[in-house]
């Protein structure tokens, strides 16, 4: 056998083995048994997190010197809808946050109204699901007191955040949304933030209002929040998994 033949054969065998390996991995990934096993793992992860985080522990807060000089914005950088563009043009003078659903008193709040609500400032680390972290200072209305003001019905179990941005394009499933259970909604560090690093929230970071839920990953921190809805179940909303990224395979509880 000539050297070239042998090299060709080895390369061919290598490519074939590589192909088999890839196909094997992806086949394993598609197998219902493997997926069932993974599903069990996910349920265990959720239960473990809920057991550990039931006590309302606070996320670490940092000093002003720790703030990232360049806080990365991710997802939508600017919602390109006519509605949002109009709100932005008037500097959100006509913007209202609607709080409705399973509440006794539905609310409609302007930015000035929100500024008058019980507020909190915190310097926290933002961990993106991709792996990077940035530290920023946030100021906003605490979600808990706001929900108490609206008065949750007994049947309310989740708080859904409807956003202005269409990260998923046109259609009913294109809108960004997120949801929290009541434990996280009433956590003292859960804010509707209107300020970042001492300035009004910029458009890439979710102007005029974004959610901060410090013990979870970045995709839970919905930007461009327009409406807060108390629900018993989120199964009827968009893909039914409780959030834009959740509908695309990510965990609803983003604690890890």
């Amino acid at each position, binding site marked *: 056998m000539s050297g070239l033949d042998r090299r060709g054969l080895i390369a061919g065998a290598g490519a074939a083995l590589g192909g088999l390996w890839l196909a094997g991995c*992806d086949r394993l990934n598609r197998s219902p048994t493997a997926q069932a096993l993974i599903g069990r793992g996910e349920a265990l992860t959720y239960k473990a997190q809920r057991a550990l985080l039931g006590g309302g522990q606070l996320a670490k807060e940092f000093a002003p010197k720790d703030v990232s000089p360049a806080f990365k914005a991710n997802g939508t950088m600017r919602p390109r809808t006519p509605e949002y563009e109009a709100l932005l043009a008037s500097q959100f003078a006509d913007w209202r946050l609607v709080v409705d659903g399973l509440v006794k008193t539905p609310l409609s709040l302007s930015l000035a109204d929100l500024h008058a609500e019980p507020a909190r400032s915190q310097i926290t680390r933002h961990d993106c699901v991709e792996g990077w972290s940035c530290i920023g200072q946030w100021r906003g209305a605490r979600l808990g007191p706001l929900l108490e003001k609206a008065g949750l019905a007994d049947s309310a179990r989740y708080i859904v955040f409807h956003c202005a941005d269409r990260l998923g394009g046109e259609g009913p499933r294109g809108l960004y949304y997120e949801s929290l259970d009541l434990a996280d909604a009433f956590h003292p560090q859960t804010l509707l933030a209107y300020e970042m690093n001492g300035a009004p929230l910029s458009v890439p970071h979710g102007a005029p209002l974004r959610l901060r839920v410090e013990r979870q990953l970045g995709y839970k921190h919905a930007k461009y929040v327009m409406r807060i809805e108390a629900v018993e179940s989120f199964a009827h909303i968009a893909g039914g998994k409780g959030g834009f990224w959740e509908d695309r395979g990510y965990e609803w509880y983003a604690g890890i």
Partner: protein
Amino acid sequence: MVKIRIRRHSLPVRIAHWVNAAAFVLLLASGLQIFNAHPALYWGQKSDFDRPWVAMTPSGSADGRLIGVTEVAGRRFDTTNLLGVSDGQARGFPAWATLPSYRSLAEGRRWHFAMAWLFAINGALYLLWTFLSGHLFRDLWPTREQSRPRHIFKDILDHARLRFPKGEEARRYNVIQKWAYLAVILVLLPLMVLTGLCMSPGFNAVAPWLVEAFGGRQSARTIHFLSASGLVLFFLVHLSLVALSGLWNNLRSMVTGRYAIEVGE
């Protein structure tokens, strides 16, 4: 000389070994999938995007092709087709190294966390057993005689010449082997679990001291990657030495527990 079969690996060791092997391969491949979502590493609490410690990035060449550039501590290397760019696409690690092969952070994460449970529970049971049964101090801890510099030096020379212990000497592990196993089971594997937990913002709220002990979340992520790299290095050396020092004998001993050695009559 006669060949006899000795009992080498007990049943708990064999079970733990293969469960760990399966979990390790799946954790590695799904871990690289997760890494590919942001193929860069930093030290400290936060990411300084302008000064990563490690970064794998695509870069255009003069003839319009994409080249993969890997940057480590300020030095840049062309790693096209392995890191940064493979199959003409921007990717940290190539498709053959990740689970699934196509880009899916969501699926990689689901695999990683499911396998992490298997890995951590298996590892914890193994450590408990190895300690309580006496396996750790009887079989894995170097003896006083093995720890003498002369002995260690001879062992290094023997390894370098691929001369493996025979006869009575093959009844026990040699000192370098013992060090390698101890480093893996007592340092690298526990480090994987601890640094892995420190990437969870939820866990960080529960035990803030642990992520601080590693120097911050980005440091914990970098140590997670380095520790995994150490395990990959061990894995490659382990497979090579298993093959070179008697593939079937080694494999059989990790399946049935029986290991053949030659002894004088």
